[in-house]
């Protein structure tokens, strides 16, 4: 059973890599900038999943921290790139309510 489990997760990791490679095709060929961003974002999600599965295969639970970090960084990177391409600058306040954040 142990080896069956190992092969199962290996197959899962391989399938994730295949799907990441297919996503790269959309990243390279995507007609618009937003297609590319979508592909990058989806690629990041798959990277998180791959990291989780891979840490399981090599039996090191610490690696899940890295997956957690990657999920957060993926979000920040997407927002930063989007903001840069929409406003051509990072110094824009996206918050139209007061900084206090109380509900208007």
């Amino acid at each position, binding site marked *: 059973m142990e080896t069956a489990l190992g092969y199962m997760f290996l197959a899962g990791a391989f399938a994730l890599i295949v799907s990441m490679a297919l996503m790269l095709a959309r990243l390279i060929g995507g007609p618009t900038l937003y297609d590319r961003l979508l592909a990058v974002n989806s690629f990041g999600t798959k990277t998180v999943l791959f990291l989780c599965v891979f840490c399981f295969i090599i039996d090191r639970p*610490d690696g899940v921290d890295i997956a957690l970090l990657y999920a957060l960084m993926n979000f920040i990177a997407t927002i930063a790139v989007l903001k840069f391409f929409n406003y051509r600058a990072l110094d824009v*306040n996206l918050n139209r309510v007061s900084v206090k954040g109380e509900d208007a």
Partner: protein
Amino acid sequence: MHDPHVLLRVISKFLIPIIALFALYVQFHGDYGPGGGFQAGVILAASVILYALIFGLDAAKKAFPPSWVRIGMTIGVLLYGGTGVVTWLLGGEYLNYSVLAHEASHGQHYGILAVELGVLVTVTTVMIAIFYAFGSRQPETDERDW
């Protein structure tokens, strides 16, 4: 009031404390798992950068003033170097932590904590300084140029 970025604001506010706490977790668990001062500094800076991305650079500079950045960059290096000098004064070699406490292993623990704290402060403030420098750049191209 028309506010198209409601969702980004709410979710980012939810995430900022968690990212900061995660940074400090990475900082203090450097000897149990992957992590350490450098990575923690980058993650802590990322939480400030997320705040700056959503609320603008001015609000970020109010929350985390540039003067803190300048002070932090020096304090971090001083902490690192100062630990070395203290071990030197206590009779060991430069950065030989064993002399910091009565027991060698305790001394090494405290020494590593101090040095990693120095790395954390320096890396955080340098990352934020780089972001402030990049973020203050005004767009050179017009909206119609591209």
